[in-house]
């Protein structure tokens, strides 16, 4: 596939994100016309008269929900693509390697033990994700010195350490769930699945600020990343300071996954799937395309979870992560099968 063809397909992806964004705001169980939407937004910004009902639903529910959905999709998509490229392993992603369970365990401790809610839970999740990421990185790096020069051993160790720590943290979460009151446990479960139900503008603002720092950082690191893909030795030969570049990549990828998880919970599979799907669409590994695919997945899944699932499940609004998980699992197994066949 030529470069211009890949660029054209990336542009198509961007158009699809915009289209889906407006579809989620305007359509659904409460429909708003496009002129009404612009009236509502301009009046909200200029302090003009509100449209009764519609203004509230759009400004307090639909719009923040969709904005946050787009941003976390972008962040998860970028984080997943960074991990997969850096570890040269199509199966690595923040949910598989334990960062999400760090965020989850910290959030559950905050909710169940300290009775926290809202911003405090997000803060705890952020801290938990970063702490577990540092722990996993430390574990995999400590071993590296002894087993030096064994190709991708450090990457594999990172994955394995993540899987082990995730299992232990899962036990902590399960235990805390049995100690909580059943209502709290149900709330915790919704958070654990990743949900946009409690989206609001404060959260959107913080997330926006974080992405305003992190997305340019991704653009800056994209060059060394492409060289790292050739292998550590080749990259060192080409003048890349491999440990420093790797550390920078880890920090940026973890931060992206952590802020997204803190805003909406660990929406499963988005980080995992965005990279491979983007590769299939554009024909090569591409960070912008992965970000767009991530946003597309979250928007589509949340539209289903918020508007279609209640029709099937007597009004239960599913957490968006349940939908991404249920749709992602078959795709993932298929991906595993083809990836394993390929190296046969």
């Amino acid at each position: 596939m030529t470069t211009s063809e890949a660029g054209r397909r990336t542009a198509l992806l961007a158009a699809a994100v915009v289209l889906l964004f407006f579809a989620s705001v305007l359509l659904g169980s409460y429909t708003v016309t496009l002129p009404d939407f612009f009236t509502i937004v301009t009046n909200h910004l200029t302090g003009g008269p509100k449209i009764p009902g519609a203004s509230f639903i759009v400004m307090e529910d639909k719009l923040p929900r969709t904005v946050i959905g787009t941003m976390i999709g972008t962040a998860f998509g970028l984080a997943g693509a960074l991990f997969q490229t850096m570890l040269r392993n199509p199966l690595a992603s923040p949910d598989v390697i334990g960062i999400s369970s760090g965020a989850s365990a910290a959030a559950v401790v905050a909710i169940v033990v300290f009775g926290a809610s809202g911003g405090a839970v997000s803060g705890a999740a952020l801290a938990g994700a970063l702490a577990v990421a540092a722990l996993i990185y430390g574990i995999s790096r400590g071993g590296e010195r002894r087993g030096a020069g064994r190709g991708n051993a450090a990457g594999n160790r990172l994955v394995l350490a993540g899987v082990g720590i995730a299992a232990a943290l899962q036990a902590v979460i399960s235990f805390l769930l049995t100690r909580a009151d059943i209502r709290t446990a149900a709330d915790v479960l919704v958070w654990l699945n990743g949900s946009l139900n409690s989206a609001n503008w404060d959260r959107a603002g913080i997330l926006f600020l974080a992405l305003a720092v992190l997305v340019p950082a991704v653009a800056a690191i994209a060059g060394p990343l492409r060289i790292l893909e050739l292998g550590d030795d080749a990259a060192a030969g080409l003048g890349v300071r491999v440990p420093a570049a790797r550390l920078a990549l880890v920090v940026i990828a973890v931060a992206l996954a952590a802020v997204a998880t803190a805003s909406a919970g660990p929406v499963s599979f988005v980080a995992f799937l965005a990279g491979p799907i983007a590769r299939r669409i554009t024909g090569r590994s591409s960070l912008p395309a992965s970000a767009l695919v991530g946003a597309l997945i979250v928007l589509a899944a949340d539209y289903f979870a918020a508007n279609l699932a209640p029709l099937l499940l007597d009004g239960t609004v599913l957490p968006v992560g349940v939908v991404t998980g249920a749709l992602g699992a078959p795709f993932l197994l298929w991906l595993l099968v083809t990836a394993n066949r390929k190296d046969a």
Partner: protein
Amino acid sequence: MSTTTARPTAGHGARVPAGAAPGPLRGEAPGRKQAAWLLAAVVVLVLLAAASLAVGARDVPLATVWQALTGFDPGNGNHAVVQARIPRTVLGLLAGAALGLAGAAMQGVARNPLADPGIIGVNAGAALAVVTGIYVFGITRFAGYVWFAFAGAAAAAVVVYLVASLGREGATPVKLALAGAALSAGLSSLMNIILVSSQDTLDRFRFWQVGGVAGRDWSVLLPGLPFLAAGALVVLLAGRTLNGLALGEDIARGLGQRVGLSRAVIALGIVLLCGTATALAGPIGFVGLVVPHAVRFLTGPDYRWILPFSLIAAPALLLGADIFGRVVLLPGEVPAGIMTALLGAPVFVWLIRRGKGAGL
């Protein structure tokens, strides 16, 4: 390749692995040290079983435990307490033994130091099946969960192993861990759809999910016994076959083993063991992973010793975790499954850092 590496067959077909694998076995009186250690492990296990009957929110002196076992007096409160602790102790013994044997055999058959029921998706499969049982069929008791959990565990194990063993290298640790993690994530999503929409189901399920030996009575235990016995028989008889497989598929084939068949039979035994253990006790992680590794320090690489040692040491660990969980957070209890995860994770990390095991 398989024909050229098969030379050792000629002379010592009968005692292959002991000579082929370097370890403490070499040059010592065969098995005497191991037998002594095994005897010591049995003594420790008996002591732990006694402690499991005696220790808890209400401590009972060991002499009274003995009286309660030999001449039960229904009017004696202490005797009743001991009586109530018998099923959980028996379950700890059975589930621990099953997980230890299954873990050891799994590590051998997959040539994979990280094979463990928790990591290869057995727990997630069992969990989804249990949730389905609660939600769809309205099952409310542990005795009813058993069959669902067993079916789910077996199905998940088969899928994970099949997916991971595609490709040239077979089921490497990373492929197995990732396939397990991936399938677990997918199955949990399906499970969560049910749990989010039904608070009743969540309320029942969360107490199964932690994994433990408390609260199960004989009606839970007894249906599992035939499965456990069959699985244990298969795996315990497989020591020599596992020794061959541990040398690699080509060598094992050169030694005259029917690799595919023996793998399939052992895998069946493993699924019987860890599927039943998970069905009876809920998901209990890390026992099957940690014990066989620890045991290797005493036994060396010979599976004919690793298997019986795991059979004794794993229930000791599970009983120890259960006893510790009873006293650590009085008056509440921490389920054994949580304690084993907290104790096991550091060992797991240490194994990864050591990084010497096959394929790591």
